[in-house]
């Protein structure tokens, strides 16, 4: 799979402050790529560079194999975190204007707009002014503006903020559909559960440096500690504990279970799960045995607090 976007050793400084320090990323075509990082890590700087809002001090960016250049703006759709539209302009005119700026002809823009207004069931808004709409409604318009010109690469910065759960779900489905239709999506957010749900690739930027990048599963595999969550019913808890603490590191675990079983998190080290399992089955009734997979949240917190 080729990459739609390659970021090569990009450096961006604001005065003495280094916002991006030789950041290198590769976004595969057709992926939903989570761009993570704490506040002030440099995500917005990177996104702005990809959008050609600002220029990098050094390094280069390839879009679909070509060096990033002004004509590429029409291939990119950008939903900034700070939302805004012209307050006193009518919704329809505004969308047409912004679509034409992305290189669409007026007729084509109108056609696309009608399609999207139908799809999101907002046909009645055409002649309304933005100031007459609620925040969530304005967000929907903004989403439409972002995808109207059928960009190959979509960049969403916190796309769900401001939406109620119903609308957030509609937007999520639309994002997934856009991906099915062939778009690649870069997704910057602090909501880890939506990363978990949507992303297949992630990158983590912290203090201007990229720390992690890769397929979500690969990253998780890298971060897994070979630990297992175990639920066991045993008559002889002390004996059991004695046995396993001899061989493994054991911590109390916390997971939901209907039984009144003993809950443990056991780190295997170099041993295989079967070793543990055979040991456990001798001592009691195992009713829960799951490999502990790190969540994105865990990975995020661990990486950020390590540094």
């Amino acid at each position, binding site marked *: 799979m080729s990459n739609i976007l390659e970021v090569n050793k990009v450096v961006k400084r*604001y*005065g003495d402050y280094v916002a991006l320090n030789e950041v290198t990323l590769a976004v595969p075509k057709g992926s939903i790529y989570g761009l993570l990082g704490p506040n002030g890590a440099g995500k917005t700087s990177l996104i*702005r560079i990809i*959008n*050609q*809002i*600002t220029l990098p001090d050094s390094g280069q960016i390839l879009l679909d194999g070509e060096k990033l250049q*002004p004509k590429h*703006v*029409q291939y*990119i759709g*950008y939903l*900034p975190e*700070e*939302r*805004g*539209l*012209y*307050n*006193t*302009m009518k919704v329809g005119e505004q969308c047409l*204007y*912004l679509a*034409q*700026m*992305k290189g669409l002809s007026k007729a084509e823009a109108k056609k696309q707009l009608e399609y999207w207004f139908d799809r999101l069931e907002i046909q009645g808004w055409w002649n309304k002014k933005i100031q007459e709409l609620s925040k969530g409604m304005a967000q929907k318009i*903004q989403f439409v*503006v972002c995808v109207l010109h059928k960009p190959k690469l979509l960049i969403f910065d916190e796309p769900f903020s401001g939406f109620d759960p119903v609308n957030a779900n509609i937007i999520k489905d639309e994002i997934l559909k856009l991906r099915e239709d062939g778009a690649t999506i870069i997704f910057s957010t602090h909501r880890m559960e939506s990363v978990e749900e949507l992303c297949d690739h992630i990158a983590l930027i912290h203090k201007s440096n990229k720390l992690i990048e890769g397929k979500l599963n690969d990253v998780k595999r890298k971060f897994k500690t070979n630990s297992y969550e175990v639920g066991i019913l045993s008559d002889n808890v002390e004996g059991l504990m004695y046995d396993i603490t001899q061989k493994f590191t054991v911590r109390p675990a916390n997971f939901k279970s209907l039984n009144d079983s003993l809950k443990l998190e056991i780190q295997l080290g170099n041993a295989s799960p079967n070793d543990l399992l055979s040991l456990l089955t001798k001592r009691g009734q195992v009713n829960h045995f799951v490999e502990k997979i790190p969540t994105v949240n865990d990975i995020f917190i661990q990486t950020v607090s390590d540094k």
Partner: protein
Amino acid sequence: MSIISLIIKREFISKVRNKSFIVMTFLSPLLFVALAGFVGYLSSMKADTKQIAIHDESGLFVKEFTSKNKKDADYKYLDLSLVDLQYLKDSITNESYEGLLYIPKSTNSKELENSIQFISNDSPSISFTQKIQNIIEAKLTKTNLVNANLDTLVINKAQANVNINLTKASGEESVKGLNEIKIGIGGAFGYLIMMFIIIYGNMVMRSVIEEKTSRIVEIIISSVKPFQLMIGKIIGTSLAGLLQFFIWAAIGLLLMFAASAFFGVNVGPTARISPELMDAAQQEMAGTVQMYIKELWNLPIASILIGFVVYFIGGYFLYSSFYAAIGAAVDNQTDSQQFLLPIMMPLILAVYIGFFTVINDPHGTVAVIFSMIPLTSPIVMLMRIPFGVPLWQIAISVTLLFASFFAVVWFAAKIYRIGILMYGKKPSWMELYKWLKY
């Protein structure tokens, strides 16, 4: 290019559709006419004639004030030389005299020169004291000459009365008062440029601030370059300004036609009084008017109009770039004040120089220098053009104006580019300087 025209179109339409634009465009000429009418009405009202009491112990001067052939609409002089001076002084307030002119008894003119008093509650206007002084001086001089046994007839004959005829080097005779017309035309155009720069420059700034506070700017500049956005905004707004100007011009012409029709009717009845007299007067009037019209046509009209367009474009673009950069640097309009002051100053300076220096000496060093400096040249040069400016000066001035326009646009674009993405802090001058280096 098509993107810039798209931006220009949007800016233009959003300005023109704005309610305040419509109100401003159609209401302000009416307001202007109403105001002019009001002022005209006020000034046509006879001011109360002020009474001046004269206590002339010398008896020399009182006739000069009270004699019938010295008409004075504003002041009425009362000869109260026989009334007791102290009583007069006390009665200034009671009798509502504007003041009391006291001339002591003396035959020594040197002594008189400094002993005449004007007593009043409020200090009199400069023009009034000047007038009294002139009358007394003239009389006193005459008396002195008579006392020196000089024949007044000879003196009157010897009195030169110079009336300089203005002739241009090209040989045509000029009408007197033409300079006033030139000043009027130059001043009007210069003032117009200043007004347009301020009004429409502010509009550009407001529009930038609006985009910034509504945060739409990030979406827009992900599609277009900040520079394109800035230029599009400046041009679009200027077109709205020009439209307003043309509407005003059209309304002005209509009103002028309406006014002349209105006054034409008014003139009618007076014509009945004496046709011959009217004819003569009309002919004379027509002659003068023709002369003036001829002179008006002799004015460098082409250079004035072309100058107006060129300097309007240059000056407006130069200042609008400043306004755009300021709009980008601040978050709201109240923060813009500290940056606006340095912009207003050259404009105000230019108008002052125009109205004081250019009028006195259209081709003096000060006028020439300030008609070269780009920040003041649009106004000062426009005021000079009716007086005839050498082409090389205009060439230098225009070149400087447009060169600095490009320089300023370049700087402004840098500040603009950084500024529109900066939120939440009020930048200092130092910070703006740093942005230039990013």
